[in-house]
């Protein structure tokens, strides 16, 4: 497939384009969805396709090449389309290669896995053992090969393979918990543990009562902490900053979080987000987005870096840079110590539907789901339901009081887009609202 990625580039150059990226993706992902404690459907994809990105006289065009036997025709069409577009003076080209890439080996046992049923059963069994009555979720075996070639000398390939399971357990109509397991190696994959966690939270969340609005100290479980990390890391894209979708604009070098917060993007770490290079072919590297509460950098490709007078952070996105894998550096507390610090507060385990009234101000709300627990003197005192967090993104991050020593890898549908290492986090005075009856 290397040759096809290169053919995309040479073809586009032949049409008079420059700054060309050719990619070929071989997708062999496999999934089992389950609900009501049974498989609902098993899915598998067998796709091989290309992607072309090019600059024709300052006009930037990209597109998919569905049929790799038609590279000249498709690239020719893209060039024709480019001629009708308008120049983008902010595009300044691609990073200059060649580059050397680190070794990235996928687990052959993951790649060869053809049946995930036992993992699904292990997760369901774990949840039911804890007292859950009903479970639903997804098991994934990711297996994608990527081949990249650029007109600026970058060339490489990588195989991304991993295992993922997400399970939600219900012990009653309004009593639920969620667990996830993520691993690049088969031996490290523990869906049963995810099932136990989901089931344990569900069983603990029985008979919830309506929550009471107010400001509370909150312990965020890693899954919901992952959502807040996703928001902060996602808003660090230089593109989001420039387009008015981020509260981080104008805050480089300024405090955006408490001293305890160091957030890094690191595609070299062993997470589902690990990779060798970004979409310009630049070798990925670890970088601090926030260090001890201070915003250190936005995430850049070559063009956004030029606009912000810095260097690429190897986070292309050819148009919009993005995080690969987010890691909130652990703190110095145990989970139990964080709970003991809460005299009267909440423990939240998951959330969804995070939306903004103003992206630039960071004013948002999000709706906790699954177990919501009132904590008094470090212990679960009540089970709540039907609350909403209505707060400010940077305000929440500035009120972080403590982080756990241990982190967990999380990723979840809709809220934690980027593979994330998240600790338990204790945040002071989080604003809670509730719908009027």
């Amino acid at each position, binding site marked *: 497939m290397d040759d096809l990625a290169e053919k995309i580039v040479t073809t586009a150059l032949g049409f008079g384009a420059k700054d060309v990226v050719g990619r070929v993706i071989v997708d062999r992902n496999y*999934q089992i*969805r389950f*609900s*009501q404690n*049974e*498989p*609902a*459907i*098993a*899915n*598998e994809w*067998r*796709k*091989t*396709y290309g992607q072309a990105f090019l600059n024709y006289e300052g006009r*930037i*065009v*990209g*597109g*998919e090449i*569905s*049929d790799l036997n038609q590279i000249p025709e*498709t690239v020719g*069409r893209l060039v024709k*389309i480019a*001629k009708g*577009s308008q*120049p*983008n003076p*902010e595009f300044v080209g691609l990073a200059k290669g060649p580059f050397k890439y680190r070794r990235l080996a996928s687990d052959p046992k993951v790649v060869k896995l053809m049946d995930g*049923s036992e993992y699904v059963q292990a997760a369901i069994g774990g949840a039911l053992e804890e007292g859950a009555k*009903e479970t*639903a979720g997804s098991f994934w075996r990711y297996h994608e090969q990527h081949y990249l070639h650029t007109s600026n000398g970058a060339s490489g390939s990588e195989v991304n393979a991993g295992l993922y399971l*997400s399970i939600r357990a*219900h012990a009653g109509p309004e009593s639920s918990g*969620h667990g996830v397991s993520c691993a690049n190696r088969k031996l490290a994959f523990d869906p049963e543990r995810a099932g136990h966690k989901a089931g344990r939270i569900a069983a603990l969340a029985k008979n919830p009562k309506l929550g009471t609005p107010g400001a509370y100290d909150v312990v965020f479980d890693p899954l919901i902490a992952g959502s807040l990390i996703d928001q902060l890391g996602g808003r660090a894209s230089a593109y989001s900053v*420039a*387009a*008015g*979708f981020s509260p981080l604009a104008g805050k480089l070098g300024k405090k955006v979080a408490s001293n305890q917060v160091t957030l890094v993007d690191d595609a070299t770490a062993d997470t589902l987000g690990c990779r060798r290079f970004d979409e310009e072919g630049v070798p990925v590297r670890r970088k601090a987005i926030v260090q001890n509460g201070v915003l250190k950098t936005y995430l850049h490709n070559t063009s956004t870096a030029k606009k912000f007078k810095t260097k690429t952070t190897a986070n292309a996105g050819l*148009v919009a840079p993005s995080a690969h894998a987010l890691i909130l550096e652990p703190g110095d507390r145990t989970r139990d110590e964080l709970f003991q610090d809460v005299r009267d507060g909440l423990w939240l385990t998951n959330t*969804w*539907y995070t*939306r*903004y*009234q*103003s992206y*630039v101000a960071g*004013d948002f709300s*999000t*709706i906790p789901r699954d177990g919501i627990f009132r904590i008094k003197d470090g212990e679960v005192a009540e089970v709540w339901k*039907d609350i*909403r967090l209505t707060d400010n993104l940077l305000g929440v991050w500035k009120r972080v009081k403590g982080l756990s020593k241990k982190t967990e890898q999380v990723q979840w*549908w*809709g809220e934690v887009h980027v593979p994330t290492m998240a600790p338990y986090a204790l945040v002071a005075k989080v604003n809670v*609202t*509730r*719908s*009027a*009856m």
Partner: protein
Amino acid sequence: MTEDLVDFAVEHARSKGATYAEARFEQQTNEDFVVRGGVVDALDSTESRGIGVRVLAGGSLGFTATNLLTRSDVREITERAIALARGAKRKKPVKFAQEPAVTADWSVPEARPLADVSVEERVEEIVGIDRDLVGLKYKIPGRFFTCYSNRISKYFANSEGSRIRSYSPRVRLYYHLTLIKGGDVEQCNENYGWSGGWEALEEVKARERVLEAARTAINALEHGKKSPEGKTDLVAGPQVAGIAAHESCGHPTEADRILGREASQAGKSFITPDTGSMRIGSKVVNVVDDPTMEHAIAYYQYDDEGVKARRRYLYRGGKVTEFLQNRETAAVLGTRSNGAARATNYDREAIVRMANTFVEPKDYTPEEMIKDVKHGVYMKSFMEWNIDDKRWNGKYVGREAYLIEDGEVKGPVRRTVVELTTKAFWSAIDAVGKDLELFHAGWCGKSDPGQALDAALGGPTIRLRNVYLR
């Protein structure tokens, strides 16, 4: 050629023992571009095509998809779909509700076919709107537009004899503006959608609406007061009525959600199979989902299981009356599909989806509704919104909103918070307008892998009495 492959997949699946098989070829031709600050960031032009095969074998479902359109690849994925289904070993077999075989060929008329409209014209249209915005002389540092067009050609076949061809062109425009006045900031966005050709932007009056949004945002920055807190009347415009219908009527009546198939992702519902015809709103409330609304973004004649589309009354006279069904959920609930199965592309299974969901219009004008309000808020649009995954606790925060006093619209108010339960919202309605606007659109998210699908989110103006606002 590709139709032969689709037919072959169905026949091959049956020959290998599938009790039911369907295959769907889709070709989607997208041309999307972003205009940011007057500059075309990039243009994405993609022609994706492929075949998805879904089978019922051994009482379970298997789905596979490929873009490799050879007979051997289609044979392989078909056999793999059967193996995946058989490997599931369900205790409760999946069944499909009975449906007649259908032969059909449908398409959406385009006054200006997308295929005939040049890139130059499309780009210039949006850049021109941006230019007009700049011409207003306001401080608008963030001007962001995304223009989408998609031409969707499909061929569907199943083992019961259905053969359906379709062509569905769609246009969407999203904008997001950041406006500043005196150190204060207001952001606004909207999303318009149209099934048809490039006449879309003119039909939805996109240019006028974007410019008006900027004017009203500046007006709010200059003159906006704090929105009143406490119990008062609310007149909600088409966008607000639309999002509420989508979130708290459409989603909770999705039968797959009610049956728990989406529990881990999009969630469940406050409605259960046993709740029956529960009262959820006042007697004037009818909420429908109707794929057959011509030119609405989610227009279709047959769904992705080959079932004929029709209007569904989700809430009628304030009571829950009908769920959105596909063939799988209908069989579980002992009813018939009502044609709500859709997929985003060939590589996704068709699941229960809303199409064009709206409050059924009645006979009031907005002016008549406002005239009878002593004290209240007229909320025309919103920014922040969300709802819990059982679809009971909703929140809509006003963008363009005005105070109403003694039946007259007064000055702008900012950030009106409508944070109500579903029952509180729909029970408070005493009047429904005739001003249906169905071109407000959204991306409706559901399923895993995610399927962000076109959905119309408009409606008529509605009036709510004595609701708690912040």
